[in-house]
């Protein structure tokens, strides 16, 4: 975590330095760094999703019930990081669009879970 923090601060300083000479290139560096670090964060999230699936299997919950939870987690992580990157690059409307779409995608992903719950309630 400390190395990641140091890396992020270093990249911000490099980007600030380069923005003196070329604003475009500093934005490109921010985007490139954001993409690489997002890849790292998602690779760490993979351990979490594996654990969620294992827990779902152990507890006997149908895996189709756990899949929407993991999907929404992924949508949230990607939406948040992408929106912040767009804000950094000065495009607030793009960030807003991404956040709205992330909410819609999350709701769509959760619908099967809602149907399952309603079916469960109906069968009681």
């Amino acid at each position, binding site marked *: 975590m400390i*190395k*990641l923090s140091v*890396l992020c601060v270093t*990249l911000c300083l*490099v*980007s600030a*330095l*380069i923005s*003196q*000479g*070329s604003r*475009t*290139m*500093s934005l*490109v*560096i921010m*985007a*490139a*760094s954001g*993409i*690489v*670090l*997002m*890849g*790292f964060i*998602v*690779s760490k*999230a*993979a351990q979490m*999703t594996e654990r969620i699936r294992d827990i779902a299997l152990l507890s006997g919950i149908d895996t189709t019930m756990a*899949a929407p939870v*993991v*999907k929404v*987690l*992924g*949508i949230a992580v*990607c939406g948040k990081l992408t929106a912040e990157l767009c804000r950094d690059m000065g495009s607030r409307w793009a960030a807003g669009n991404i956040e709205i779409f992330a909410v819609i995608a999350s709701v769509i992903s959760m619908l099967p879970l809602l149907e399952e719950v309603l079916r469960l309630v109906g069968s009681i």
Partner: protein
Amino acid sequence: MVKSMDVDLIFRVAAVGILVAVLNQLLIRSGREEQAMMTTLAGLIVVMMMIIQQINSMFTLIKSTFGF
């Protein structure tokens, strides 16, 4: 931890950025704004070609991790 290849990639991108920024300033100071724009454009293309592979592997990772 962040794979060393990724950190190298970030710093290679930063090196291209610094080089383009310096050239940009030199060309602007010597009155050649169009060439400065071309230099920035060239730098942008070079960096995009460097990170396009990283973008692809990240999307693949996201799909496999979150089950899309």
